[in-house]
């Protein structure tokens, strides 16, 4: 924001000569053009519709039609052909599938599932992954969370299978057809920038609350990375290889199966990994619409601020995330190693042997499972909820407020709310609506192209048209404040990490773990520390976005050309000078990417922060779900999507802008 105003201000007062000089620079040219347009349009708009929040004359109320649509759906859900013959079958297929997987998991028993998962992890990603899986499943059982874990796992298996299938098909289409790629790519990019909450309402509208809508929302949320990476992988095939295959007279299908798909294996596996992680994140959040399982336990505990119970359900989620990530990511790197080059004749025999081993392992697992019983024995559990709650109460009493000198966590929360969030919110809400549009246009155009600027402005306008201007500005103030803190902290950590390999080595495993955790989990500790309100939501958002920012920034700084650094050093530049004048400018693209990621990630958590008193747009979604008032929820959900789109576009660097 400040960069825009500081460049404009001197120019306004500058003599014409300087103006002409400024005209040479593209950034200034854009700003001048935009300033001129604003200067012409703003007085007109201000005179016609005023200069406060979005004018009500320009808003369209969809409450009535949406409410009627909701009533119609509820009344006709059991009679209209659309539901009986279309949605009903989708819902039925999902429920049957989840049920089948769940029954199989229960039939395998706790010993069977644990042994099976460990074997699978071992086979796919090595001994360490196998041991991790073994320990993790044992901990899930020990915490008394076996049944919820199996439910989440059953839902996940179905959702991931569907996401991978859908994503791979879309990706295949986009990989093979240029037109499809051009059409699909912006859609997929956009879908990845939207917070999970925005996906919940539409499926609830059609399917009501339950497991089927939860799976559908998960699939919609988790399929894009698969589609995207499949398409990228297929398109990245070496042209030379393709030509060689062509010259051997391969048909289109042979070419795809023998050359393009195998060559894209790394991307495909990365896609599967990302899809699994996104699916887990969503499967947990979808407890708000009845997904059951671990997420539901967290949700139940959060609504009573029972941190101990929330942690009991949160630990298995984290463990599940780590196991799934290690197993599938391990598979990804292992697949990069070329194999199968040694003697083709050996292959069939080895395959038979593997198959036999597998059959034996499966039989043993099943037998073990049947012997040990279906669910984890009740006497083998450790109740951690009470001690955790006692610890939390102690923390609340001792850390909460009144620590001499630094104050307590509650005091920080109150100060952050009173001195940062409130002024920022009031400022944004007091900003004239046309001013906000112009500001967004300026920022987006400076960083990106006129296309991104147009999308950003239209998204912001859509929020106004939906009548959600004030809550959106509230949400925006929370996002901006949290992003600022995230960036400051992120740079503070990333700079030492980029300069010292030792710090980097220490940091890496921590970042790995933090990046795999689903958003929902972050809400638990912040409630214990900061109570309820906008401050804990911000804290959760900051912690969630920090690892990505640290990783991207430190990578960008480290990639700076060694020769450039060397020459700077030989000129006698100090460490700080090197950083400011060489490394930062060279890593401009990465820094912008870090900002973009920070904005997207922070927004997604600020929205679910409504569950801990964050208010604003997220609250309206929760309210809509809680009161069955889907019209309100749906409008807020759309506004969230628009806000996400706007923030993403404003911070999206493009190739054109980097030139």
């Amino acid at each position, binding site marked *: 924001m400040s960069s825009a105003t500081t460049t404009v201000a001197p120019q306004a007062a500058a003599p014409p000569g300087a103006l002409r000089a400024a005209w040479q620079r593209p950034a200034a040219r854009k700003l001048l053009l935009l300033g001129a347009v604003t200067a012409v349009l703003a007085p007109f708009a201000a005179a016609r519709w005023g200069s406060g929040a979005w004018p009500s004359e320009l808003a369209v109320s969809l409450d009535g039609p949406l409410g009627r649509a909701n009533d119609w759906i509820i009344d006709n859900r059991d009679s209209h052909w659309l*539901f009986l013959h279309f949605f009903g079958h989708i819902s039925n297929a999902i429920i049957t599938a989840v049920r089948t997987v769940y029954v199989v998991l229960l039939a395998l028993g706790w010993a069977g599932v644990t042994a099976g998962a460990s074997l699978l992890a071992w086979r796919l990603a090595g001994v360490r992954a196998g041991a991790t899986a073994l320990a993790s499943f044992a901990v899930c059982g020990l915490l008394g969370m076996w049944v919820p874990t199996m439910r989440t796992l059953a839902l996940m298996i179905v959702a991931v299978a569907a996401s991978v299938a859908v994503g791979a098909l879309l990706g295949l289409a986009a990989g093979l057809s240029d037109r499809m790629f051009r059409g699909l790519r912006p859609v997929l990019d956009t879908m990845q920038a939207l917070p999970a909450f925005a996906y919940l309402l539409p499926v609830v509208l059609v399917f009501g609350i339950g497991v089927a809508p939860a799976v559908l929302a998960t699939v919609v949320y988790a399929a894009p990375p698969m589609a995207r990476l499949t398409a990228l992988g297929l398109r990245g095939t070496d042209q030379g290889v393709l030509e060689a295959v062509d010259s051997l007279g391969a048909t289109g299908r042979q070419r795809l199966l023998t050359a393009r798909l195998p060559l894209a294996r790394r991307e495909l596996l990365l896609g599967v990994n990302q899809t699994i992680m996104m699916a887990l994140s969503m499967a947990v959040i979808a407890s708000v619409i009845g997904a059951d399982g671990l997420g539901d336990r967290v949700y139940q505990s959060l609504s009573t601020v029972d941190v101990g119970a929330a942690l009991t359900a949160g630990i298995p989620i984290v463990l599940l995330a780590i196991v799934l990530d290690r197993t599938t990511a391990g598979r990804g790197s292992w697949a990069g190693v070329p194999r199968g080059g040694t003697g083709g004749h050996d292959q069939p025999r080895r395959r038979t042997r593997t198959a036999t081993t597998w059959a034996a392992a499966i039989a043993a697992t099943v037998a073990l499972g049947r012997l040990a019983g279906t669910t984890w024995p009740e006497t083998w559990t450790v109740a951690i909820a009470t001690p955790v709650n006692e610890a939390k109460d102690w923390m609340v009493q001792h850390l909460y407020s009144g620590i001499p000198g630094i104050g307590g966590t509650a005091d920080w929360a109150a100060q952050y709310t009173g001195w940062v969030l409130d002024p920022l919110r009031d400022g944004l809400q007091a900003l004239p609506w046309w001013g906000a549009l112009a500001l967004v246009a300026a920022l987006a155009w400076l960083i990106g192209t006129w296309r991104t600027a147009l999308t950003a402005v239209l998204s912001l306008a859509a929020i106004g048209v939906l009548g959600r201007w004030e809550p959106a500005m509230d949400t925006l103030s929370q996002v901006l404040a949290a992003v600022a803190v995230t960036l400051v902290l992120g740079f503070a950590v990333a700079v030492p990490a980029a300069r010292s390999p030792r710090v980097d080595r220490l940091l890496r495993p921590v970042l790995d773990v933090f990046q795999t955790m689903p958003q929902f989990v972050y809400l638990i500790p912040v409630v214990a520390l900061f109570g309820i309100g906008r401050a804990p939501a911000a804290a959760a958002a900051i912690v969630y976005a920090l690892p990505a920012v640290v990783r991207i920034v430190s990578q960008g700084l480290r990639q700076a050309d060694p020769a450039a650094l060397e020459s700077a050093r030989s000129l006698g530049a100090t460490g700080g000078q090197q950083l400011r004048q060489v490394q930062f400018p060279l890593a401009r693209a990465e820094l912008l990417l870090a900002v973009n990621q920070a904005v997207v990630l922070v927004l997604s958590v600020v929205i679910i922060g409504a569950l801990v008193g964050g208010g604003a747009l997220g609250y309206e979604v929760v309210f809509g779900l809680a009161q069955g008032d889907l019209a309100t929820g749906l409008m807020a959900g759309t506004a969230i999507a628009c806000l996400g789109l706007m923030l993403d576009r404003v911070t999206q660097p493009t190739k054109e802008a980097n030139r």
Partner: protein
Amino acid sequence: MRKRTTWTVVAAAALLATATGCGAADMTRQSSPYANAAGDGKTVTLSVQSWVGARANTAVAKYLLEKELGYRVDTVQVDEVPAWDALSQGRVDALMEDWGHPDQEKRYVADKKTVTDAGELGVTGHIGWWVPKYFADAHPDVLDWKNLDKYAAQLRTPESGSKGQLLDGSPSYVTNDKALVKNLKLDYQVVFAGSEAAQITQLKQFAKEKKPFLTYWYEPQWLFNQVPMVEVKLPEYTDACAEKGAADPATVDCAYPTTPLKKYLNTEFAKKGGKAARLLKNFHWSKADQNEVAQMIAEDRLPADEAAKRWVQRHPDVWRAWVR
């Protein structure tokens, strides 16, 4: 080549249609995939709402169903209004404490007949506005709504800005507070704490510092034992006002009614649920009973199962009649 692909697609579609039964699939008859996974037909799914009283009902019902009747019980967190839809669709079997939703009752009980009235819970609920006793003792005239504006300045908080704060809890509760504040032209701002637990945390903090507050609250509630509160008199509840409110909730300008809390069952479950359905229909206890369990859960931080167990051991005279 192309032709063969087309045929494959057609065949696959046909296969899919056959596999899914080709005919109608009524999603309102599809229960949760987790229900009855053991296959013995003895699973009951109870909906839980976020307030502690409702958790107490569910905890005791769950304990008795499991330990006395040998059922497997699932609990799912669903707010009141969505619970009606879930109940109608058979995704949950019972709603143990409903605070009065005439719209839903008409739609599901009277028109669609997918939900069955299972009688009263035995507890009478009352919603209102309350101030702490220490504040009411110092300023007795705050107990009439007409004098509330006089105290608005004292009740300001950062979240309510220049107006007085009327603290509301969870977004899922039955509330007319926004309409009341507007129609009675009060200088107050309704602030939602986000959840009941958050509201209680806030009220306790106010009480600890002996600060005044005005809050949406309800009876029966265990918190009264810890933070004594006095109700503020709102314009009297009349049938005319209730009718006006039913037509358009934004026009309500009178107090909340006193509601006998009710239980509702899924119709199918009510007919075929056997002993479990009978127990849930017979479930009937007093305000004191509910508060006893609620306090164990919320204040003593006992797990719900443990609280239910203690109550069940102390009061066999009450629940024996339910399981017969």
